[in-house]
């Protein structure tokens, strides 16, 4: 009875916080937890447009869909491409907002700083359809500005979007252009949280700007960096259906066909929902393992983990 009353006392004390979080919790419940029951169809042979009752009664097929995916001729190709595109995204897209946030923080004029921030946030609000269109126009072999410059130096135009050796760079590069500005927000807020007296003390001690960044700003951002890094690891198998779908083509399948596009082409269009669910579940399990590994590694290195 005592424990129960303590519980209700706590609920009463923090009721506004609970109320505040209710909307978020409901969102996650409806959109992220209830649909998880759908995982069931990865182990069943269901036909599209079945009712829930029919799905529940559909025959179990065990790991059949997983085996079909793993035995697919292009399994290693699409898995490799997914990992490669994600790895390059992590390698280049992850440090970019950190560096940019530090640079923005060093800007002295407040008005200029705000103008820079507003401008670099803008690409985030463009849809991938527009960004992919821009990439195709800018890098077009006939009219694109990049090829116009190349041709003005008497070189042959390069068909960037249609060449295997450039497609990943275009995908990763366009992501950096689109998202780096927006991703600085979390790092800028981490920098804002750093005690200003540390900078004062460093100035008195004669520290240079670079030393202040190295010994105050970066350590102050450590938690945010490790947190974002762990979360990015969870997205390693999520190479971005939209951006790849809009930029790849049969000419670049070898380097740009990822798990998501493979599933979309081979399954979703043909309405093989069981197969598509199995592949996505496979992806989610691997992603979860990656998050666990990153969390473990982070703790081993003495940093904060997610839990």
């Amino acid at each position, binding site marked *: 009875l005592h424990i129960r009353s303590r519980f209700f006392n706590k609920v009463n004390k923090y*009721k*506004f916080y609970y*109320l*505040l979080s*209710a*909307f978020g919790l*409901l*969102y996650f419940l*409806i959109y992220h937890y209830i649909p998880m029951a759908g995982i069931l169809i990865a182990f069943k042979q269901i*036909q*599209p*447009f079945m009712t829930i009752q029919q799905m529940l009664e559909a025959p179990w097929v065990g790991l059949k869909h997983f085996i*079909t995916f793993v035995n*697919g*001729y*292009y399994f290693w190709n699409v898995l490799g491409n997914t990992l490669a595109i994600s790895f390059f995204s992590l390698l280049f897209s992850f440090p970019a907002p950190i560096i940019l946030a530090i640079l923005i923080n060093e800007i002295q004029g407040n008005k200029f700083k705000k103008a820079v921030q507003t401008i670099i946030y803008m690409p985030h609000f463009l849809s991938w359809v527009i960004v992919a269109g821009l990439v195709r126009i800018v890098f*077009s*072999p*006939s009219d694109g500005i990049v090829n116009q410059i190349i041709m003005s130096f008497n070189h042959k*135009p390069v*068909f960037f*979007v*249609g060449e295997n050796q450039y497609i990943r760079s275009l995908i990763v590069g366009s992501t950096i252009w689109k998202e780096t500005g927006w991703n600085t927000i979390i790092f800028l807020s981490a920098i804002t949280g750093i005690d200003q007296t540390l900078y004062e003390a460093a100035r008195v001690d004669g520290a240079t700007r670079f030393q202040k960044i190295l010994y105050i700003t970066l350590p102050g951002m450590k938690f945010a960096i490790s947190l974002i890094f762990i979360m990015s690891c969870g997205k390693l198998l999520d190479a971005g259906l939209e951006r790849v779908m809009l930029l790849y*083509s*049969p*000419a670049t*399948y*070898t380097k740009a*066909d990822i798990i998501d596009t493979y599933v979309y*082409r*081979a399954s*979703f*269009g*043909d*309405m093989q*929902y069981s197969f598509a669910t199995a592949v996505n579940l496979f992806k989610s399990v691997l992603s979860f393992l990656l998050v666990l590994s990153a969390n473990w590694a982070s703790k081993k290195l003495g940093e904060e983990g997610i839990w």
Partner: protein
Amino acid sequence: MRLMKLLTFLLINTIMCMTLLISCGGKRNATDGSLKLVAWVRGINNYVVPPNYILEAVHQKILVDTGVDIKIVIGPANSDEFNTQLNNALAAGEQIDIAQVANMKTYYDLGILADLSEAINKYGLNITERQGQENMNQAFINGGYYGIPRNSIAGNTYPVWIRGDWLKKYNLNLPTTIEEFENALMIFAKNDPSGNGTTIPLMTNGRDNKNVMGCIMSLAAAWLDYGYNDLNGQFIDSNGHLLPSILAPGFKDYLTTLYRWYKNGYLPRDNYLLQSAEQLDMIKAGRVGAWAGWYSYITSNEGVMQVNHPEAYYEKLDLEGPKGFAQSFVYSGSDWPSAYVVFNRCKDVDAAVKVLNWGYIGANYIYSKYAMDAEIDYTDGIYYYTIIKEPIGHDYQGLYLGPANESRFRLIGGDPLIKRHNDYTAMQMQDFRYGKFPITKGIRFDRELLNAVCPKFSDINRMIEENMLAFLVGKRHINEYDNFITELFGIGFEQYIDELSRQFNEQKNTQR
């Protein structure tokens, strides 16, 4: 103060939760006593969704004429996008009674189509009369009609076109052979008639038409004994096997020629990856010397091109190569047709057929497209429509219900910008003198069974698609073609061919 805080929180949370719950709920159409059907129709490339007042006028006329209240939803023009949206909506349980589908067998196999036979007998007499038995047979499965076919069973839809004014400019005759055609392309490339290096001597369908299908359908038969027809088979070897077109003797020569044209700069570097909108812009701008691909890229856009280039016009070519005519005719009878289907969840199949039949009565076809009246006259197997009023605009699609065989129609009056299109569909679409049919004409394959026998069929498709493009643009040398075929057999192509041949021979024997 505390109470105010509490009330504010409660209010905000209630609003947010309600919004969330409303957004989760599936929206079904109200059935306020009157029957309301929902029809999903695919848009058409280069056309835009009609303004609401057009759709409303069509809705009202159908309501008055048939007593059926129908809501028309016009989806994306891109076939893949439309299918995905339609399938997702069906899977989500949205109310869809009638839909235009690309392959009706897919939905028949899922057991979700209504048998329309009885309703057609009662309310679909205009459909059967206008369609004709051969067309209607496309949708006949296991003793019942499960759809209303949208297209004629065969079509002359991949002709080659060339700029007649440019031929005149350089004193060239209308090319009749592949060699003469290549010569014209060379002269266009050399002289740059469009100016400032903007001339595109040749363009073929790009990304939105399966990348390489356009040029294959328009040109490959010049090196083949029969017309091309995807993987459905092209020729029979001495062992009685029906072998896919890509194994045909001569297909390598076709690839070699197209690569030579690409290397010589007759085709844009990004030809096979261009989207239809980009290609249409180039045609409208008067930059394209020749087109090998889907007919309407020219027929629907020549008029627009002539607004800025009045002297420009296209001539249709009937090219011949080492093995005869270059063009393959589309024969949808070997696959399941694009059709209007009624789903078996529809509460009133009779009402759905009444609506479909409405499109086949008098000039309702025109009304469904333009929401305007027309007069109809039937002469020599062709329906001539005369639009009474001035058209509201040329660039919208309309409901597009109506007789499957578009070719019987010719609009008199109406928008001059699409005169070429109407003339082509009326006079040339069914002209089968200058091309080839596939050997599989009249054979209907069971794709379900093919996929079951060859589970890696989607991998085979990717390998073919990827490599065709590689050979066409020289990323893979043609000397490696035999290696590519070996790779295909390595992932189960043989099983596919065996099953294909089995079905082909079985049906041929039955026909005998």
